[in-house]
């Protein structure tokens, strides 16, 4: 296997096939992108009272990115449980590819599903509330979204590895959905929070991805936010890789790979 091109190809093909699997069950996905839609609508209704059109645009863009977070918060913690249930977790571990490189495409695929939700929310906002999100620099905007997807996926990677030992991991994941919506500044500016809370917000990659998306939509320079998003994403990925090594060794020692 030749190094970088080989790894890139492996990551792309496995991402694509995992995405195919996740998309195959449309019904399961419906709840995932309808749920943020309800909250988005509530937010729009509240902001509309305000009478400020800029506020509506703020909410419109924010609620679109909310879908990415929801996609990963609700599914990442169950990622390995799902593999275990398929009986494929052992096979993934038995492959010569490092486990981190096996797991990353899975969480990226899960986050990519969130992109459907993003589109649905923007459409919804436009159709029902007349919200049009201006995009001053389309290239930078798309770049911000792509970087957000990848950074959120790295967080998902960490989440999926951290909760592998808990069979009710899905509940822990669900618990993170609202805190993420609140802390990442999707619907509410981070500056409203007490100082110690903003530190937590700034440690989350989606906060910077959201910031970059807003800046590129408004025509400002998103490069600082993008850079911070990338750095945070890589940091989470590194921690997750180390943790995955430890978790796998523990699973091999305590024979927990096959248990359903």
């Amino acid at each position, binding site marked *: *296997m030749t190094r970088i091109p*080989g790894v890139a*190809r*492996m990551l792309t*093909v*496995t991402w694509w*096939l995992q995405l*195919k*699997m996740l998309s*195959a*069950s449309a019904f399961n996905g419906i709840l995932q992108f309808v749920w943020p839609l309800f909250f988005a609508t509530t937010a729009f209704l509240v902001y509309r009272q305000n009478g400020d059109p800029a506020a509506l645009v703020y909410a419109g863009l924010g609620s679109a990115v909310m879908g990415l977070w929801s996609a990963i918060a609700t599914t990442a913690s169950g990622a390995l449980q799902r593999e275990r249930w*398929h*009986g*494929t977790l*052992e*096979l*993934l*571990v*038995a*492959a*010569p*590819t490092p486990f981190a490189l*096996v797991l990353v495409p899975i969480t990226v695929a899960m986050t990519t599903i969130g992109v459907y939700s993003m589109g649905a929310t923007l459409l919804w906002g436009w159709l029902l509330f007349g919200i049009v999100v201006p995009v001053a620099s389309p290239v930078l905007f798309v770049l911000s979204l792509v970087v957000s997807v990848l950074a959120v996926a790295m967080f998902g990677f960490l989440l999926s590895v951290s909760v592998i030992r808990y069979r009710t991991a899905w509940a822990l994941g669900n618990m993170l959905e609202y805190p993420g919506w609140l802390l990442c500044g999707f619907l509410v500016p981070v500056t409203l929070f007490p100082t110690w809370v903003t530190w937590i917000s700034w440690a989350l990659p989606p906060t910077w991805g959201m910031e970059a998306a807003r800046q590129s939509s408004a025509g400002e320079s998103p490069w600082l936010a993008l850079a911070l998003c990338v750095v945070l994403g890589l940091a989470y990925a590194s921690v997750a890789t180390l943790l995955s090594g430890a978790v796998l*060794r523990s699973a*091999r*020692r305590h*024979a927990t*790979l*096959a248990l359903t």
Partner: protein
Amino acid sequence: MPVIEADDLGRSYVSTTGILRRRRKTVEAVRGVSFEVGEGELFGLLGPNGAGKTTTIKMLMTLLLPTSGHARVLGHDVVAEPREVRRNVGYVFGGDRGLYDRLNARDNLRYFSELYGVRPDRQRVRIDELLELVGLRGREDERVEGFSRGMRQRLHIARGLLHDPAVLFLDEPTIGIDPVGARELRTLIGDLKAAGKTVLLTTHYMFEADELCDRIAVIRSGTIVAEGTPAQLKDAVSDGHVLEVEAYGVHPDVVASVRRLAGVRSVSIEEDGQAQRLLVQVDQGVEVAPQVLGLLDGTTVGRVVTRQPSLEDAYVELVGTSANGQD
């Protein structure tokens, strides 16, 4: 140099029960298992359910860390060099799981060929070759969720062969498959050996081990109780004979009494519809038929046969059975 070496392998599990007063229970699934498999050999690990076959194979496969002992595959230690082992070994296990139901057969193979580092320019050819080999040509674009167990098993084998490994671990590959499908699978396994692969097969069907394996190790309760070629194992019990009595409603106490008779090596009972077959393995030159029939007084008795032991008898004796034929 042997391809697979197990040296005093052991694996124990510690489980805790209870919430307030936690009690620790240690179960030794595998104890002191040692064997060697040479290149191109088809080695069988034969034993009843719960004997430790799957645990042994998983340790060799680097999925479980041994709690004692060592193992090497192709010269690489399974604990210290797991990635080298994984690169050269294929792992196939029986049952319905282990495949992605929502993908079709080809995509399943594509996924695993990426994970096993099959070269991109070789992938399509290799996948086609393997689908042809396992007889799934023409079904590759169907979703796996619609496959029968036999088809899934064949796809499993194709998956295990993607990276053309030198060694193949097959864990009960014919379990739960209809006789015709199972026979086709066994033919396939025989072809793999003919192609020069080293195969370690676990099974609890002794006729399968007899048919396929060059050498067999019989494992029971975590230890190997016998090892050798099928012929050697049969020889081990060929002195002596087997007394087979067909009876209706044999009481467990009677079986215990028969076991205590002088010259009796082992007793087992097989259910055959309404009737039961009492199999008594007896030492050379000892006659127990009259005593056994005496103990069965009051029970309806059918055919009584004295015959030479088969591999099945060897297996039954080695594995050791309780009164109702279960281990």
